[in-house]
């Protein structure tokens, strides 16, 4: 433990850790690099794999980051994945980035944050609003093996991770003096640069905070105190520690963007964070959780018999996982293709994916039974996921953060003119995983809904469009007909939601009434259904596992589960749907394929 920030840091060019030795030529394509990382990390169950579950669980038990695996990822140059290509890194789009991170998250959620994604949470602020010097220094730092983390401001209903904040006042000779303390910040004990949201004005206004790039080699050691590691239930190996800044002089050029731009910057960059937490950590973690359950069934006395309750649970969770991934990938592709429209959808993605997957974790626990409590390498990872995933989603504070974006959107929905038109439908490119895309332009992220007055919600419109087109597929068989019926029920629910939003916006309550949160919840489930239908509709047989995605079974099961969660009357599914989907899951398990939309080969 250092007591000073400057103890082990140098200039951006001389980092704390050895610079990555770049492996030979890496593929330019995110999916191919994901395969590279997957193979690099190797078989999680091999006893002699230093990056397998045995080593990762042992490190977690010791509350340490897995040093060998962190070093491996450092040698691969994981941090380059967070640096835009024009600054020398490999970051093109966030869909590809999420793919590269999934092999890490499937093995260890805490590692994915600690050794990886946290750096982007911080750097994305610089990519969005930093000046040339800040962008170059940040790129050089990350490419050189340096470590960055983020100091959030205190939010409403903050938990330990979001509690506490810093305050800046102008220094007499120019620059600022920063004071404050946070107790639970990932990597605070070992980062050499921080992006900090610092209060620069009193009150609750939108310009109360500003973002600063705090580079430890530019701060005096006496003003910067690293606090001891905090003990957390989940992500035990992640370095959560505190940081105390005491009368800390900060140069004027540390300010990122304009004074008072902090809240706006958090609204913009959180879109990236939320989408990557959903499409990286949550989907990746859930993929592994489902795999533990399938393995437990395969090793049970009766073997992989899928008739009965356990088969239904596995099929249901598989459907949810594919549906959540549909939503997550839609959100990621939206960021890459049209970032100015991503504010509301990225919040909905995070809300829905974390709610659905946490519920499924309990279902899987019942399938695992006693194996779910084992600590050995075969099943110990399940209990670790039960501990880690709630931390990844940040619990209620994470939900409240998304609700603050989603509640105002209800007004837009209230004004929506849905009847008789399916205009403004989001384009098919959003719903086609892995299709050509464009690199995310951080500067185009918006802090305000792009067009609230026109009442446009392209994703909900896609649900209406898909439902109308499914009518034409009824002749293909009873499962397509059942899907068309369900889609029609969801389309009716879209209209009902708009009506309820209109009623609510007429209510005189000055404060946001609880009823608006009910509608937000329903809206997010509808968006998940929209993404699910659209991904199914656009899946070609040539897509990864297109045969499964282009067939109606998974969407049918996912929508029936969403419908029951919405309290809709959901008819019985046609015979064999769950059983066939469970068989598809077992097929992927036996062929060593991931359970997400990509169905990639596992090491």
């Amino acid at each position: 433990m250092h007591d000073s920030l400057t103890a082990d840091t140098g200039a951006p060019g001389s980092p704390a850790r050895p610079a990555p030795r770049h492996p030979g030529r890496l593929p330019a394509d995110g999916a191919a690099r994901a395969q590279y990382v997957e193979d690099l990390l190797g078989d999680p169950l091999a006893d002699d794999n230093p990056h397998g579950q045995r080593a990762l669980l042992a490190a977690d038990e010791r509350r340490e980051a897995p040093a060998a695996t962190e070093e491996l990822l450092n040698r691969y140059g994981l941090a380059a994945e967070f640096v835009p290509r024009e600054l020398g890194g490999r970051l093109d789009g966030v869909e590809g980035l999420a793919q590269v991170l999934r092999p890490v998250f499937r093995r260890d959620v805490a590692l994915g944050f600690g050794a990886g994604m946290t750096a982007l949470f911080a750097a994305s602020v610089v990519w969005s609003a930093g000046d040339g010097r800040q962008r170059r220094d940040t790129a050089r730092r990350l490419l050189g093996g340096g470590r960055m983390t983020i100091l959030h401001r205190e939010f409403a209903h903050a938990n330990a991770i979001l509690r506490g904040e810093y305050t800046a006042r102008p220094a007499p000779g120019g620059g600022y003096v920063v004071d404050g303390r946070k107790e639970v910040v990932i990597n605070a004990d070992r980062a050499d640069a921080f992006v900090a949201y610092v209060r620069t004005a009193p009150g609750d206004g939108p310009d109360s905070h500003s973002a600063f790039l705090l580079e430890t080699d530019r701060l005096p050691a006496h003003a910067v105190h690293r606090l001891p590691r905090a003990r957390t239930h989940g992500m035990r190996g992640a370095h959560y520690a505190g940081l105390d800044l005491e009368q800390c002089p900060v140069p004027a050029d540390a300010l990122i963007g304009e004074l008072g731009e902090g809240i706006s910057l958090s609204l913009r960059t959180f879109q990236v964070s939320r989408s990557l937490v959903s499409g990286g950590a949550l989907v990746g973690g859930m993929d592994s959780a489902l795999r533990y359950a399938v393995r437990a069934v395969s090793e049970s006395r009766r073997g992989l018999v899928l008739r009965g309750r356990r088969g239904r649970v596995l099929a249901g969770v598989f459907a949810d996982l594919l549906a959540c991934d549909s939503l997550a990938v839609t959100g990621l592709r939206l960021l890459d293709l049209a970032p100015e429209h991503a504010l509301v959808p990225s919040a909905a993605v995070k809300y829905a994916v974390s709610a659905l997957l946490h519920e499924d974790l309990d279902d899987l626990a019942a399938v695992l039974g006693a194996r779910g409590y084992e600590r050995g390498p075969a099943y110990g990872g399940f209990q670790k996921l039960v501990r880690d995933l709630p931390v990844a989603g940040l619990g209620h504070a994470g939900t409240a953060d998304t609700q603050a974006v989603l509640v105002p959107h209800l007004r837009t929905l209230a004004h929506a003119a849905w009847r008789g038109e399916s205009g403004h439908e989001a384009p098919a490119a959003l719903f086609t995983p892995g299709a050509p895309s464009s690199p995310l332009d951080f500067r185009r992220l918006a802090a305000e809904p792009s067009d609230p007055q026109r009442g446009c919600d392209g994703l909900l419109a896609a649900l209406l469009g898909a439902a109308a087109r499914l009518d034409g597929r009824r002749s293909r068989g009873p499962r397509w007909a059942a899907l068309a019926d369900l889609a029609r029920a969801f389309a009716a629910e879209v209209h009902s939601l708009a009506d309820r939003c209109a009623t609510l916006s007429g209510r005189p309550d000055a404060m946001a009434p609880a009823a608006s949160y009910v509608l937000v919840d329903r809206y997010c489930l509808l968006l998940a259904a929209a993404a699910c239908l659209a991904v199914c509709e656009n899946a070609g047989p040539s897509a990864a596992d297109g045969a499964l995605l282009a067939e109606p079974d998974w969407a049918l099961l996912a929508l029936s589960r969403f419908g029951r969660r919405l309290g809709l009357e959901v008819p019985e599914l046609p015979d064999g749907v769950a059983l066939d989907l469970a068989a598809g899951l077992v097929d992927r398990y036996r062929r060593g394929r991931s359970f997400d939309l990509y169905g990639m080969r596992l090491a």
Partner: protein
Amino acid sequence: MQPIEPTDPRNGDARDRDGTGAGVPVAPHGASGLGTVATAHGCAVAPPVHIPRPDSSWLRVRENLLDRGATVAYATWTEWLPSVLTTPRLRALLGRDWDRYADTQDPVVRCRFAASRLLIKYTAAAALGIDPGDIDIAYRLGGRPYLRGLDQVEVGLTHTGELMAVGISRLGRMGLDAERADRRFDLDLIRNRICTPVEAAELDALPAGQRAACLLRLWTLKEAYTKALGQGMRLPFTEFGFDLGPGGLRTPDGTEALGDEWAFATHLVLGRYLISAACHDAGLDPAGDTSVGTMLDRRLLTAMTSPGQDTGGADI
């Protein structure tokens, strides 16, 4: 909070404070025995609070939620029956549950159902600082209830005989189970269904007079834990166990199963019912404030409202 009938000056809460109505921890053999188990991180589950009417004092429910992270309120459905019968807002209060209420023919079943929904809504409303009519009780696929859109608290509920109880936790999931304290199982008939081998051996080692009571508590704890997971009987009771001594989850072979994120407690209420609670602590150290009125960050809201727009737009 809107009282749904005139306030009775004899506040039922006063009875609880002198202990006659409040839950009493059950720990018949010394300090151990699956009674209240306080853990380093987990909440030490406070005794259930008797709320005989909607207009009783909810102070202790709120205090427990703030101080301990979780709280349990209980009543008999007959105590809440007058409210069910006299409130002019019953339809609004039942919301989506109205159809189920109206379709139920048996008047006793119907009234008990309505009373339990009112108890959930009033308890949640007290915890969240909103009107009970604004709460939408939704159900997970496994049947576990939750408050749609309001994940600052998790709820658990149970009823048996005339008793109904509602748990609210701001730390994590919560499950409750209640049984008549004099209910007796035939150990030989059910041991293979509910006990791990280690538990069965420990039960056998107890004096004969304590066995039945211990088994009953074990049963309620297993019910409470599986209900907290939203699984009910889908997670077989032989797949996990409890330490009959200091408490805490065990694997079937008796080794410690999880860390200290779960807290368990059993209390005797009304002199004749056991209420067991299983409370999960996700470890996020969440805010003590659970009120709905403060959950949206004001700065985010004002930042997203463009200058030309009515600021009320954020408050739809």
